Protein backbone atom coordinates (compact mmCIF):
# COMPACT_ATOMS: atom_id res chain seq x y z
CA UNK A 1 0.00 0.00 0.00
CA UNK A 2 1.52 3.30 -1.10
CA UNK A 3 -0.82 5.68 0.68
CA UNK A 4 -3.28 5.18 3.54
CA UNK A 5 -5.65 7.80 4.90
CA UNK A 6 -7.48 6.73 8.03
CA UNK A 7 -10.48 8.56 9.57
CA UNK A 8 -9.23 11.99 8.59
CA UNK A 9 -10.98 15.01 10.10
CA UNK A 10 -10.13 18.56 9.13
CA UNK A 11 -11.88 21.75 10.21
CA UNK A 12 -10.66 25.22 9.24
CA UNK A 13 -10.89 28.07 11.74
CA UNK A 14 -12.42 25.95 14.52
CA UNK A 15 -14.45 27.76 17.17
CA UNK A 16 -14.84 30.90 15.08
CA UNK A 17 -17.65 32.24 12.92
CA UNK A 18 -15.69 31.03 9.91
CA UNK A 19 -15.57 27.44 11.12
CA UNK A 20 -15.66 25.09 8.12
CA UNK A 21 -15.71 21.35 8.66
CA UNK A 22 -14.10 20.21 5.42
CA UNK A 23 -13.25 16.55 5.89
CA UNK A 24 -15.45 14.79 8.41
CA UNK A 25 -14.42 11.13 8.22
CA UNK A 26 -12.30 10.22 5.27
CA UNK A 27 -10.70 6.84 4.79
CA UNK A 28 -9.13 5.47 1.65
CA UNK A 29 -6.13 3.49 0.50
CA UNK A 30 -4.12 3.89 -2.66
CA UNK A 31 -2.24 0.99 -4.25
CA UNK A 32 0.96 1.42 -6.20
CA UNK A 33 0.18 2.08 -9.87
CA UNK A 34 -3.40 3.28 -9.42
CA UNK A 35 -4.63 6.28 -11.41
CA UNK A 36 -7.50 7.73 -9.41
CA UNK A 37 -9.85 10.48 -10.56
CA UNK A 38 -11.40 12.46 -7.72
CA UNK A 39 -14.69 14.23 -8.37
CA UNK A 40 -16.76 16.45 -6.09
CA UNK A 41 -18.53 19.81 -6.04
CA UNK A 42 -16.73 23.06 -5.29
CA UNK A 43 -15.64 23.38 -1.70
CA UNK A 44 -15.95 19.71 -0.76
CA UNK A 45 -12.31 19.61 0.24
CA UNK A 46 -10.50 18.10 -2.73
CA UNK A 47 -7.63 20.57 -2.70
CA UNK A 48 -7.49 20.27 1.08
CA UNK A 49 -7.16 16.50 0.70
CA UNK A 50 -4.16 16.86 -1.62
CA UNK A 51 -2.58 19.40 0.74
CA UNK A 52 -2.99 16.95 3.62
CA UNK A 53 -1.24 14.22 1.67
CA UNK A 54 1.61 16.59 0.76
CA UNK A 55 1.97 17.62 4.41
CA UNK A 56 1.09 21.28 3.73
CA UNK A 57 -2.03 21.00 5.91
CA UNK A 58 -2.29 18.88 9.06
CA UNK A 59 -5.44 16.89 9.91
CA UNK A 60 -7.17 17.47 13.25
CA UNK A 61 -7.61 13.74 13.66
CA UNK A 62 -6.65 10.61 11.78
CA UNK A 63 -3.56 9.00 10.33
CA UNK A 64 -1.85 9.42 6.98
CA UNK A 65 0.77 6.94 5.90
CA UNK A 66 2.85 7.36 2.76
CA UNK A 67 5.45 4.74 1.72
CA UNK A 68 5.06 3.19 5.16
CA UNK A 69 5.94 6.46 6.92
CA UNK A 70 3.76 8.67 9.05
CA UNK A 71 3.14 11.84 7.03
CA UNK A 72 2.35 13.82 10.17
CA UNK A 73 5.92 13.40 11.37
CA UNK A 74 7.47 14.69 8.15
CA UNK A 75 8.07 18.14 6.75
CA UNK A 76 6.43 19.14 3.45
CA UNK A 77 9.93 19.45 2.04
CA UNK A 78 10.84 15.82 2.83
CA UNK A 79 7.57 14.60 1.38
CA UNK A 80 8.02 16.71 -1.74
CA UNK A 81 11.04 14.60 -2.67
CA UNK A 82 8.64 11.74 -3.48
CA UNK A 83 5.55 13.67 -4.52
CA UNK A 84 5.05 15.55 -7.78
CA UNK A 85 2.36 18.23 -7.82
CA UNK A 86 0.44 20.25 -10.38
CA UNK A 87 -1.82 22.93 -8.96
CA UNK A 88 -5.21 24.35 -9.81
CA UNK A 89 -3.65 27.76 -10.49
CA UNK A 90 -1.19 27.63 -13.44
CA UNK A 91 0.95 30.27 -11.69
CA UNK A 92 1.57 28.09 -8.63
CA UNK A 93 3.72 25.39 -10.16
CA UNK A 94 6.49 27.48 -11.71
CA UNK A 95 8.64 30.44 -10.66
CA UNK A 96 7.89 33.19 -13.15
CA UNK A 97 11.09 35.21 -12.78
CA UNK A 98 13.15 32.15 -13.61
CA UNK A 99 13.65 30.82 -17.12
CA UNK A 100 12.15 27.60 -18.43
CA UNK A 101 15.48 25.81 -18.09
CA UNK A 102 16.03 27.15 -14.58
CA UNK A 103 12.61 25.89 -13.48
CA UNK A 104 13.35 22.50 -15.01
CA UNK A 105 16.78 22.45 -13.37
CA UNK A 106 15.19 22.95 -9.97
CA UNK A 107 12.69 20.17 -10.62
CA UNK A 108 15.42 17.85 -11.90
CA UNK A 109 17.15 18.05 -8.53
CA UNK A 110 14.11 17.70 -6.34
CA UNK A 111 15.07 15.85 -3.19
CA UNK A 112 18.79 15.93 -3.97
CA UNK A 113 21.46 17.91 -2.18
CA UNK A 114 21.95 21.32 -3.75
CA UNK A 115 25.45 22.66 -4.23
CA UNK A 116 27.22 25.68 -5.64
CA UNK A 117 27.68 23.99 -9.00
CA UNK A 118 26.28 25.66 -12.10
CA UNK A 119 22.49 25.56 -11.97
CA UNK A 120 21.88 24.62 -15.59
CA UNK A 121 24.63 22.44 -17.00
CA UNK A 122 25.27 21.95 -20.69
CA UNK A 123 24.08 18.35 -20.53
CA UNK A 124 20.92 19.37 -18.64
CA UNK A 125 20.09 21.86 -21.41
CA UNK A 126 20.22 19.08 -23.98
CA UNK A 127 18.02 16.85 -21.84
CA UNK A 128 15.48 19.63 -21.26
CA UNK A 129 15.40 20.48 -24.94
CA UNK A 130 14.61 16.85 -25.80
CA UNK A 131 11.97 16.53 -23.11
CA UNK A 132 10.29 19.75 -24.25
CA UNK A 133 10.47 18.77 -27.93
CA UNK A 134 8.47 15.64 -27.08
CA UNK A 135 5.60 17.86 -25.95
CA UNK A 136 5.33 19.50 -29.35
CA UNK A 137 4.56 23.00 -28.06
CA UNK A 138 7.71 24.65 -29.40
CA UNK A 139 9.02 25.35 -25.91
CA UNK A 140 12.33 23.64 -26.73
CA UNK A 141 13.44 26.78 -28.55
CA UNK A 142 12.65 29.09 -25.64
CA UNK A 143 14.73 27.49 -22.91
CA UNK A 144 16.03 30.78 -21.56
CA UNK A 145 12.72 32.68 -21.73
CA UNK A 146 11.30 33.62 -18.33
CA UNK A 147 8.33 31.43 -17.45
CA UNK A 148 6.28 34.57 -16.77
CA UNK A 149 5.88 35.17 -20.50
CA UNK A 150 4.28 31.76 -21.14
CA UNK A 151 0.54 31.24 -21.40
CA UNK A 152 -1.35 29.46 -18.62
CA UNK A 153 -1.55 26.28 -20.69
CA UNK A 154 2.15 26.31 -21.46
CA UNK A 155 2.94 26.86 -17.81
CA UNK A 156 0.69 24.00 -16.78
CA UNK A 157 2.36 21.66 -19.28
CA UNK A 158 5.75 22.76 -17.98
CA UNK A 159 4.61 22.14 -14.41
CA UNK A 160 3.43 18.65 -15.33
CA UNK A 161 6.80 17.96 -16.92
CA UNK A 162 8.56 19.29 -13.81
CA UNK A 163 6.35 17.24 -11.51
CA UNK A 164 7.17 14.01 -13.33
CA UNK A 165 10.80 14.67 -14.27
CA UNK A 166 12.11 12.84 -11.21
CA UNK A 167 9.55 9.99 -11.39
CA UNK A 168 7.84 10.66 -8.05
CA UNK A 169 6.25 7.87 -6.04
CA UNK A 170 2.98 9.80 -6.15
CA UNK A 171 1.62 12.41 -8.54
CA UNK A 172 -1.01 14.87 -7.26
CA UNK A 173 -2.94 16.76 -9.93
CA UNK A 174 -5.41 19.41 -8.80
CA UNK A 175 -7.76 20.34 -11.64
CA UNK A 176 -4.66 20.80 -13.70
CA UNK A 177 -6.59 21.32 -16.93
CA UNK A 178 -9.35 23.54 -15.50
CA UNK A 179 -7.81 26.85 -16.59
CA UNK A 180 -7.01 25.65 -20.10
CA UNK A 181 -8.89 25.96 -23.39
CA UNK A 182 -10.52 22.74 -24.66
CA UNK A 183 -7.73 21.95 -27.13
CA UNK A 184 -4.89 22.51 -24.67
CA UNK A 185 -6.87 20.75 -21.97
CA UNK A 186 -7.09 17.74 -24.29
CA UNK A 187 -3.33 17.83 -24.94
CA UNK A 188 -2.52 18.02 -21.24
CA UNK A 189 -4.97 15.22 -20.37
CA UNK A 190 -3.45 12.97 -22.98
CA UNK A 191 0.04 13.86 -21.89
CA UNK A 192 -0.94 12.96 -18.34
CA UNK A 193 -2.36 9.63 -19.47
CA UNK A 194 0.77 8.88 -21.48
CA UNK A 195 3.09 9.63 -18.58
CA UNK A 196 0.98 7.57 -16.20
CA UNK A 197 0.92 4.59 -18.54
CA UNK A 198 4.60 4.85 -19.44
CA UNK A 199 5.83 4.75 -15.87
CA UNK A 200 2.91 3.10 -14.10
CA UNK A 201 2.77 6.39 -12.23
CA UNK A 202 0.55 6.33 -9.14
CA UNK A 203 -1.67 9.38 -9.56
CA UNK A 204 -4.48 11.24 -7.80
CA UNK A 205 -6.24 13.55 -10.24
CA UNK A 206 -8.86 16.00 -9.01
CA UNK A 207 -11.16 17.08 -11.82
CA UNK A 208 -14.57 18.60 -12.56
CA UNK A 209 -14.48 17.12 -16.02
CA UNK A 210 -16.73 14.06 -15.82
CA UNK A 211 -15.76 12.87 -19.30
CA UNK A 212 -12.08 12.97 -18.41
CA UNK A 213 -12.71 11.19 -15.12
CA UNK A 214 -14.50 8.40 -17.00
CA UNK A 215 -12.05 8.20 -19.88
CA UNK A 216 -8.82 8.26 -17.87
CA UNK A 217 -7.79 6.42 -14.77
CA UNK A 218 -8.31 3.05 -13.18
CA UNK A 219 -10.51 4.23 -10.32
CA UNK A 220 -12.99 6.99 -9.63
CA UNK A 221 -13.79 8.53 -6.25
CA UNK A 222 -16.61 10.95 -5.57
CA UNK A 223 -16.29 13.20 -2.53
CA UNK A 224 -19.16 14.93 -0.85
CA UNK A 225 -19.16 16.87 2.39
CA UNK A 226 -15.88 15.43 3.47
CA UNK A 227 -16.77 11.81 2.83
CA UNK A 228 -16.37 9.37 -0.02
CA UNK A 229 -19.80 8.75 -1.52
CA UNK A 230 -18.66 6.58 -4.42
CA UNK A 231 -15.53 4.54 -5.06
CA UNK A 232 -15.55 2.71 -8.37
CA UNK A 233 -12.74 0.63 -9.85
CA UNK A 234 -11.86 -2.23 -12.16
CA UNK A 235 -14.53 -3.43 -14.60
CA UNK A 236 -17.16 -1.41 -12.84
CA UNK A 237 -15.13 1.74 -13.60
CA UNK A 238 -14.71 0.71 -17.24
CA UNK A 239 -18.44 0.33 -17.75
CA UNK A 240 -19.31 3.55 -15.92
CA UNK A 241 -21.34 6.00 -17.98
CA UNK A 242 -21.69 9.75 -17.68
CA UNK A 243 -25.30 9.73 -16.48
CA UNK A 244 -24.43 7.53 -13.52
CA UNK A 245 -21.70 9.94 -12.48
CA UNK A 246 -23.90 12.98 -12.97
CA UNK A 247 -26.55 11.30 -10.86
CA UNK A 248 -24.04 11.19 -8.03
CA UNK A 249 -23.72 14.98 -8.20
CA UNK A 250 -27.50 15.36 -8.16
CA UNK A 251 -27.87 13.06 -5.20
CA UNK A 252 -25.70 15.46 -3.27
CA UNK A 253 -28.03 18.28 -4.02
CA UNK A 254 -30.97 16.22 -2.79
CA UNK A 255 -29.25 15.72 0.53
CA UNK A 256 -28.67 19.40 1.08
Amino acid at each position, binding site marked *: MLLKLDSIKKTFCPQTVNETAVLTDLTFYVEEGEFISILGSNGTGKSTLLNLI*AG*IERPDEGEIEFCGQNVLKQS*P*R*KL*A*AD*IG*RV*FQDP*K*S*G*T*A*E*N*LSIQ*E*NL*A*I*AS*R*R*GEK*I*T*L*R*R*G*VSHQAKINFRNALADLGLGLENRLSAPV*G*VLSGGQRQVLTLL*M*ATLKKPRLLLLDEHTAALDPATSQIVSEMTDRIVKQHGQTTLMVTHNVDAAIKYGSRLIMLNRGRIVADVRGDEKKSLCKDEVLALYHNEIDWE
Partner: protein
Amino acid sequence: MLNIILSSISQGFLWAVMAIGVYIMYRILDIADLSAEGTFPLGAVVAARAIAAGLSPWLAIVLSLAAGMITGILAGFLHTKMKIPGLLTGILILTGLYSINLRVLGAPNITLLGKETVISQLRTIIDDRNVAALILGITVTLIITLMLILFLKSELGLALRATGANEVMAVANAIATDSMKIIGYALSNGIIALSGALLAQNYGYADVGMGIGTIVIGLASIIIGERLLGTSSLSRSLLAVVFGAVIYRVVIDAVLYLGVNPQDIKLYSAIVLAIVLWLGHRTQDNNSRKGKSYVAQT
Protein backbone atom coordinates in the same frame (compact mmCIF):
# COMPACT_ATOMS: atom_id res chain seq x y z
CA MET B 1 33.92 70.88 -10.90
CA LEU B 2 35.48 67.76 -12.42
CA ASN B 3 36.53 66.80 -8.93
CA ILE B 4 33.01 67.10 -7.62
CA ILE B 5 31.67 64.89 -10.40
CA LEU B 6 34.45 62.36 -9.91
CA SER B 7 33.85 62.26 -6.17
CA SER B 8 30.12 61.90 -6.75
CA ILE B 9 30.53 58.99 -9.15
CA SER B 10 33.02 57.21 -6.91
CA GLN B 11 30.63 57.51 -3.98
CA GLY B 12 27.85 56.24 -6.23
CA PHE B 13 29.81 53.05 -6.84
CA LEU B 14 30.40 52.55 -3.13
CA TRP B 15 26.69 53.08 -2.47
CA ALA B 16 25.93 50.66 -5.31
CA VAL B 17 27.37 47.86 -3.20
CA MET B 18 24.74 48.67 -0.56
CA ALA B 19 21.99 48.87 -3.19
CA ILE B 20 22.91 45.37 -4.40
CA GLY B 21 22.40 44.13 -0.86
CA VAL B 22 19.00 45.79 -0.72
CA TYR B 23 18.18 44.29 -4.12
CA ILE B 24 18.72 40.77 -2.75
CA MET B 25 16.02 41.24 -0.12
CA TYR B 26 13.51 43.34 -2.04
CA ARG B 27 13.73 41.93 -5.51
CA ILE B 28 15.07 38.40 -5.16
CA LEU B 29 13.52 37.30 -1.88
CA ASP B 30 10.60 39.73 -2.08
CA ILE B 31 10.91 40.65 1.61
CA ALA B 32 10.60 44.31 2.66
CA ASP B 33 13.64 44.28 4.94
CA LEU B 34 14.71 47.43 6.77
CA SER B 35 17.74 45.88 8.49
CA ALA B 36 19.98 47.86 6.12
CA GLU B 37 19.37 50.95 8.26
CA GLY B 38 21.22 49.15 11.05
CA THR B 39 23.69 46.94 9.20
CA PHE B 40 25.05 49.75 7.04
CA PRO B 41 26.26 51.79 10.05
CA LEU B 42 27.25 48.52 11.72
CA GLY B 43 29.69 47.90 8.88
CA ALA B 44 30.96 51.47 9.18
CA VAL B 45 31.50 51.42 12.94
CA VAL B 46 33.07 47.95 13.00
CA ALA B 47 35.55 48.99 10.31
CA ALA B 48 36.26 52.35 11.96
CA ARG B 49 36.81 50.79 15.35
CA ALA B 50 39.06 48.08 13.91
CA ILE B 51 41.13 50.64 12.02
CA ALA B 52 41.31 52.92 15.05
CA ALA B 53 42.60 49.90 16.99
CA GLY B 54 45.39 49.55 14.45
CA LEU B 55 44.10 46.61 12.38
CA SER B 56 44.64 46.44 8.64
CA PRO B 57 41.89 48.29 6.72
CA TRP B 58 41.32 45.17 4.62
CA LEU B 59 40.87 43.03 7.70
CA ALA B 60 38.47 45.72 8.93
CA ILE B 61 36.35 45.18 5.80
CA VAL B 62 36.30 41.43 6.37
CA LEU B 63 35.21 41.98 9.99
CA SER B 64 32.39 44.26 8.83
CA LEU B 65 31.25 41.69 6.28
CA ALA B 66 31.20 39.03 8.99
CA ALA B 67 29.31 41.28 11.42
CA GLY B 68 26.72 42.04 8.72
CA MET B 69 26.30 38.37 7.85
CA ILE B 70 25.86 37.35 11.48
CA THR B 71 23.22 40.05 11.87
CA GLY B 72 21.59 38.76 8.69
CA ILE B 73 21.48 35.22 10.02
CA LEU B 74 19.86 36.53 13.19
CA ALA B 75 17.31 38.51 11.18
CA GLY B 76 16.60 35.45 9.04
CA PHE B 77 16.09 33.41 12.18
CA LEU B 78 13.62 35.96 13.58
CA HIS B 79 11.71 35.97 10.32
CA THR B 80 11.61 32.26 9.51
CA LYS B 81 11.81 30.38 12.79
CA MET B 82 10.14 32.93 15.08
CA LYS B 83 7.62 33.83 12.34
CA ILE B 84 8.03 37.60 12.73
CA PRO B 85 6.84 39.49 9.63
CA GLY B 86 9.63 40.84 7.41
CA LEU B 87 8.92 44.50 8.03
CA LEU B 88 8.92 44.05 11.81
CA THR B 89 12.04 41.90 11.71
CA GLY B 90 13.85 44.80 10.06
CA ILE B 91 12.57 47.29 12.62
CA LEU B 92 13.70 45.06 15.50
CA ILE B 93 17.14 44.61 13.95
CA LEU B 94 17.74 48.28 13.21
CA THR B 95 16.54 49.33 16.66
CA GLY B 96 18.67 46.76 18.43
CA LEU B 97 21.69 47.57 16.30
CA TYR B 98 21.54 51.24 17.26
CA SER B 99 22.66 50.38 20.78
CA ILE B 100 25.18 47.83 19.54
CA ASN B 101 26.66 50.34 17.08
CA LEU B 102 27.02 52.88 19.89
CA ARG B 103 28.84 50.32 22.00
CA VAL B 104 31.13 49.25 19.17
CA LEU B 105 32.02 52.84 18.45
CA GLY B 106 32.36 53.77 22.12
CA ALA B 107 31.51 57.38 21.17
CA PRO B 108 28.96 59.04 18.87
CA ASN B 109 31.61 59.17 16.14
CA ILE B 110 35.20 58.22 15.32
CA THR B 111 37.46 59.98 12.87
CA LEU B 112 40.00 58.03 10.85
CA LEU B 113 42.17 61.07 10.23
CA GLY B 114 45.80 59.99 9.89
CA LYS B 115 44.91 56.31 10.12
CA GLU B 116 45.66 53.85 7.39
CA THR B 117 42.56 53.15 5.26
CA VAL B 118 42.12 51.36 1.93
CA ILE B 119 41.94 54.80 0.33
CA SER B 120 45.19 55.99 1.92
CA GLN B 121 46.83 52.74 0.84
CA LEU B 122 45.62 53.15 -2.73
CA ARG B 123 46.87 56.72 -2.73
CA THR B 124 50.43 55.51 -2.42
CA ILE B 125 49.98 54.31 -6.03
CA ILE B 126 47.33 56.72 -7.31
CA ASP B 127 47.89 60.33 -6.42
CA ASP B 128 44.37 61.70 -6.86
CA ARG B 129 42.05 61.00 -3.95
CA ASN B 130 38.90 60.85 -6.08
CA VAL B 131 40.47 58.62 -8.71
CA ALA B 132 41.60 56.24 -5.95
CA ALA B 133 38.08 56.13 -4.53
CA LEU B 134 36.63 55.63 -8.01
CA ILE B 135 38.95 52.70 -8.76
CA LEU B 136 38.13 51.15 -5.41
CA GLY B 137 34.39 51.60 -5.98
CA ILE B 138 34.39 50.20 -9.49
CA THR B 139 36.58 47.23 -8.54
CA VAL B 140 34.56 46.23 -5.50
CA THR B 141 31.23 46.71 -7.29
CA LEU B 142 32.43 44.66 -10.23
CA ILE B 143 33.71 41.81 -8.07
CA ILE B 144 30.54 41.67 -5.98
CA THR B 145 28.24 41.87 -8.98
CA LEU B 146 30.09 39.10 -10.81
CA MET B 147 30.22 36.84 -7.77
CA LEU B 148 26.55 37.42 -7.09
CA ILE B 149 25.57 36.61 -10.68
CA LEU B 150 27.58 33.38 -10.52
CA PHE B 151 25.98 32.52 -7.19
CA LEU B 152 22.45 33.27 -8.37
CA LYS B 153 22.97 30.97 -11.34
CA SER B 154 24.26 28.12 -9.20
CA GLU B 155 22.01 25.34 -7.89
CA LEU B 156 21.80 27.10 -4.55
CA GLY B 157 21.12 30.44 -6.22
CA LEU B 158 18.27 29.00 -8.27
CA ALA B 159 16.73 27.61 -5.08
CA LEU B 160 17.06 31.01 -3.42
CA ARG B 161 15.44 32.80 -6.35
CA ALA B 162 12.63 30.25 -6.56
CA THR B 163 11.93 30.76 -2.85
CA GLY B 164 11.47 34.49 -3.43
CA ALA B 165 9.54 34.11 -6.66
CA ASN B 166 7.07 31.40 -5.65
CA GLU B 167 7.20 29.72 -2.28
CA VAL B 168 4.52 27.16 -3.14
CA MET B 169 6.60 26.01 -6.09
CA ALA B 170 9.77 26.02 -4.00
CA VAL B 171 8.26 23.77 -1.33
CA ALA B 172 6.75 21.48 -3.97
CA ASN B 173 10.28 21.08 -5.33
CA ALA B 174 11.67 20.14 -1.93
CA ILE B 175 13.58 23.39 -1.46
CA ALA B 176 14.37 24.29 2.17
CA THR B 177 12.75 27.72 1.95
CA ASP B 178 13.62 28.80 5.50
CA SER B 179 17.31 28.10 4.93
CA MET B 180 17.18 29.94 1.61
CA LYS B 181 15.71 33.01 3.31
CA ILE B 182 18.36 32.92 6.03
CA ILE B 183 21.08 32.68 3.38
CA GLY B 184 19.52 35.64 1.57
CA TYR B 185 19.38 37.71 4.75
CA ALA B 186 23.03 36.88 5.52
CA LEU B 187 24.21 37.70 2.02
CA SER B 188 22.24 40.93 1.82
CA ASN B 189 23.26 42.28 5.21
CA GLY B 190 26.86 41.18 4.75
CA ILE B 191 27.12 43.12 1.51
CA ILE B 192 25.40 46.15 3.04
CA ALA B 193 27.81 46.15 6.01
CA LEU B 194 30.72 45.85 3.59
CA SER B 195 29.46 48.93 1.80
CA GLY B 196 29.32 50.73 5.16
CA ALA B 197 32.94 49.76 5.83
CA LEU B 198 34.05 51.14 2.47
CA LEU B 199 32.17 54.40 2.84
CA ALA B 200 33.45 54.99 6.36
CA GLN B 201 36.98 54.69 5.01
CA ASN B 202 36.17 56.92 2.09
CA TYR B 203 34.64 59.61 4.34
CA GLY B 204 37.36 59.16 6.96
CA TYR B 205 34.89 58.85 9.82
CA ALA B 206 32.00 56.79 11.14
CA ASP B 207 29.03 57.80 13.26
CA VAL B 208 25.97 55.96 14.50
CA GLY B 209 23.58 58.21 12.60
CA MET B 210 24.96 57.41 9.17
CA GLY B 211 22.42 54.65 8.55
CA ILE B 212 19.43 56.94 8.40
CA GLY B 213 17.96 56.85 4.91
CA THR B 214 19.94 53.82 3.72
CA ILE B 215 16.79 52.07 2.52
CA VAL B 216 15.64 55.14 0.64
CA ILE B 217 18.97 55.30 -1.18
CA GLY B 218 18.91 51.57 -1.90
CA LEU B 219 15.36 51.52 -3.24
CA ALA B 220 15.83 54.71 -5.26
CA SER B 221 18.93 53.18 -6.87
CA ILE B 222 17.07 49.99 -7.76
CA ILE B 223 14.04 51.72 -9.18
CA ILE B 224 15.92 54.42 -11.11
CA GLY B 225 18.21 51.75 -12.57
CA GLU B 226 15.32 49.51 -13.53
CA ARG B 227 13.46 52.37 -15.20
CA LEU B 228 16.52 53.34 -17.22
CA LEU B 229 18.05 49.96 -18.09
CA GLY B 230 15.21 47.49 -17.70
CA THR B 231 15.24 44.04 -16.13
CA SER B 232 15.38 41.75 -19.14
CA SER B 233 17.96 39.46 -17.54
CA LEU B 234 19.56 38.88 -14.17
CA SER B 235 22.87 40.47 -15.17
CA ARG B 236 21.11 43.44 -16.64
CA SER B 237 19.01 43.93 -13.50
CA LEU B 238 22.13 43.97 -11.33
CA LEU B 239 23.93 46.36 -13.67
CA ALA B 240 20.83 48.53 -13.54
CA VAL B 241 21.11 48.70 -9.74
CA VAL B 242 24.74 49.85 -9.98
CA PHE B 243 23.89 52.36 -12.66
CA GLY B 244 20.90 53.61 -10.65
CA ALA B 245 23.06 54.10 -7.56
CA VAL B 246 25.56 56.22 -9.46
CA ILE B 247 22.87 58.34 -11.14
CA TYR B 248 21.09 58.86 -7.84
CA ARG B 249 24.29 59.99 -6.13
CA VAL B 250 25.03 62.43 -8.93
CA VAL B 251 21.51 63.85 -8.72
CA ILE B 252 21.75 64.30 -4.95
CA ASP B 253 25.17 65.95 -5.21
CA ALA B 254 23.85 68.21 -7.94
CA VAL B 255 21.06 69.29 -5.59
CA LEU B 256 23.68 70.00 -2.91
CA TYR B 257 25.82 71.87 -5.41
CA LEU B 258 22.87 74.11 -6.20
CA GLY B 259 23.15 75.37 -2.65
CA VAL B 260 20.65 73.28 -0.74
CA ASN B 261 21.37 73.10 2.97
CA PRO B 262 23.08 69.70 3.59
CA GLN B 263 20.82 69.32 6.59
CA ASP B 264 17.83 69.09 4.25
CA ILE B 265 19.38 66.42 2.06
CA LYS B 266 17.46 63.47 3.57
CA LEU B 267 14.24 65.31 2.82
CA TYR B 268 15.29 65.74 -0.80
CA SER B 269 16.30 62.05 -0.98
CA ALA B 270 12.86 61.05 0.21
CA ILE B 271 11.16 63.41 -2.23
CA VAL B 272 13.25 62.09 -5.14
CA LEU B 273 12.29 58.50 -4.25
CA ALA B 274 8.61 59.42 -3.90
CA ILE B 275 8.65 61.00 -7.36
CA VAL B 276 10.48 58.04 -8.90
CA LEU B 277 8.00 55.61 -7.32
CA TRP B 278 5.08 57.65 -8.56
CA LEU B 279 6.46 57.88 -12.10
CA GLY B 280 7.33 54.18 -12.05
CA HIS B 281 3.85 53.28 -10.88
CA ARG B 282 2.19 55.38 -13.55
CA THR B 283 4.17 53.92 -16.43
CA GLN B 284 3.70 50.47 -14.95
CA ASP B 285 -0.06 51.00 -14.96
CA ASN B 286 0.08 52.23 -18.51
CA ASN B 287 2.03 49.40 -20.07
CA SER B 288 0.99 46.91 -17.35
CA ARG B 289 4.55 45.72 -17.14
CA LYS B 290 5.21 42.18 -15.96
CA GLY B 291 6.14 41.76 -12.32
CA LYS B 292 4.94 43.23 -9.09
CA SER B 293 4.61 46.89 -8.41
CA TYR B 294 6.93 48.17 -5.75
CA VAL B 295 4.43 50.53 -4.29
CA ALA B 296 1.98 47.76 -3.60
CA GLN B 297 4.41 45.63 -1.67
CA THR B 298 6.29 48.24 0.30
